[in-house]
């Protein structure tokens, strides 16, 4: 069980410092919080013309939440906001065990490696924290553009 969760890939992403920073030209910053464990992340996105030009995060949490956030950020760069929203929905559906077809999940790239978390109910919130935060950030950025 453990070797399917704590893989080299997860270890690498959870320890990576590359995406862990303040984004200078952030157009939206969203704080995500998991009250049951106290984990929190702050996600920053630089969005221009409906495209995510750059993304970064700061925060503290378990290896699963940190790796998930790191992989999400790498996936987001260069994607349109609409695509990002769809990918977040796909990831959350995967973690909730609603989609397990590997072909369908392929576009999640490395983040598809977290599929096994769907068998660990206690860790679902860790894996989805960043993606729910992304979803909220996009909702807020929609609100901003409407305003």
């Amino acid at each position, binding site marked *: *069980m*453990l070797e399917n*969760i*704590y893989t*080299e890939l997860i*270890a690498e992403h959870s320890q990576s410092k590359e995406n862990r920073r303040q984004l200078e030209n952030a157009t939206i910053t969203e704080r995500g919080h998991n009250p*049951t*464990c*106290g*984990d929190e992340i702050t996600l920053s996105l630089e969005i221009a013309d409906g495209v995510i030009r750059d993304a970064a995060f700061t925060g*503290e*949490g*378990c*290896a*699963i939440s*940190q790796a998930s956030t790191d992989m999400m950020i790498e996936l987001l760069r260069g994607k349109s906001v609409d695509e990002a929203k769809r990918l977040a929905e796909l990831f959350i559906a995967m973690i909730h065990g609603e989609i397990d077809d590997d072909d369908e999940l392929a576009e999640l790239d490395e983040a598809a490696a977290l599929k096994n978390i769907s068998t*660990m109910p*206690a*860790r679902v919130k*860790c894996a989805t924290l960043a993606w729910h935060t992304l979803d909220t950030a996009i909702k807020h950025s929609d609100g901003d553009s409407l305003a």
Partner: protein
Amino acid sequence: MNKNFLNDFPILRTQMNGQPLAYLDNSATTQKPENVVRSICGYYGGCNANPHRGVYELSQKSTKVYEDARRKVAKFINAKSAREIIFTKNATESLNLVAFSYGLTNLQAGDEILITIAEHHSNLVPWQIVARAKGAKLNYIYLTADGNLSEADISAKLTRRTKILAVTQISNVLGLVNDVKTLAAKAHEVGAVVIVDGSQSVPHIPVDVQDFDADFLAFSGHKMLSPMGIGVLYGKQKILDAMPPFLTGGDMIEYVTEQETTFAELPQKFEAGTQNVGGAAGLTAAIDYLQSVGFDEIARVENDLTTFAISELKKIPYVELYGCDAPNKVGIVTFNIRDVHPHDVATILDAQGVAIRAGHHCAQPLMKFLGVNSTCRASFYFYNTRRDVERLIDAIKTVRGVMKLH
């Protein structure tokens, strides 16, 4: 494992993730012995009726089960009278009852409530709300380096303005025993009312409410072998008599007219609606079981396991311990593994059959005070063994490897 305990707690013979269960989350809830489970089945199988209401024999039987439990609890904590025992669903409800009934009625703007930084959220959040509602100030006693309450803070902050002192007898994170008897005496000198959270103490050490002389004591049944959903508030009769009801409705009234209600006497005044009689039956059986084991034996086993766990953990260079150097410690060991988040630790231990708690332990202000986001906690009860501790230590030693930290 003592053979009797193994027979009495069949769940301890089960497996978790294909490994024998080492249950080390007793501060969250304890396991239930067979006599407790049987007492609940026995109640629902042979005595179930709504208590206090029916004139028929079965209802009287149910009433007797419930009131016998009250007398049992009164004797167990040495209350003067069974009327001082209010049944609630847990310590959280007991503490909310005191905060919202006593606190809202008696506090005035400018008054002060004094609690400790080591309180569980259940003895902290209600006081925040009541303080805000009444314009009172919420003050904190902080800790010294060893995790004990700062005497300087107690002297400086317990003043004539302090109307309420609410303090845990044993911290659910650090496992340190506070001297509530001395605290209560000091608080009474300045005219404050004293509320003790006994959630972690009543299951583990003898508690005598007349001896320590607190005004209120709250505890949960489920942390002392009973089913979930039954808890206790002890209060001195004179104070309880003067307090307004907390929850209102059925069974707590004397007369109800269209616009007015007069309330029942203690303890019914604070027990609105149909009560958890099955839970009370379980609590009676749990107290019987605890008394058959004896608090001397409970202390002996828990001290041995705690001392053993701490000495083994101290040998591991990448383990950080919290509150483990003070002598007044009971059954709880809180730690972190360097560079590994407690949730990952708990998952890795879970895979090896070892159940511990990871997180903020419903004590976020304490976590902040300790400078951590969360911790791991192993907590023991008398049915645990040195083998359980050895398995904890062995599993801890695998953690950094699983996390690819070498």
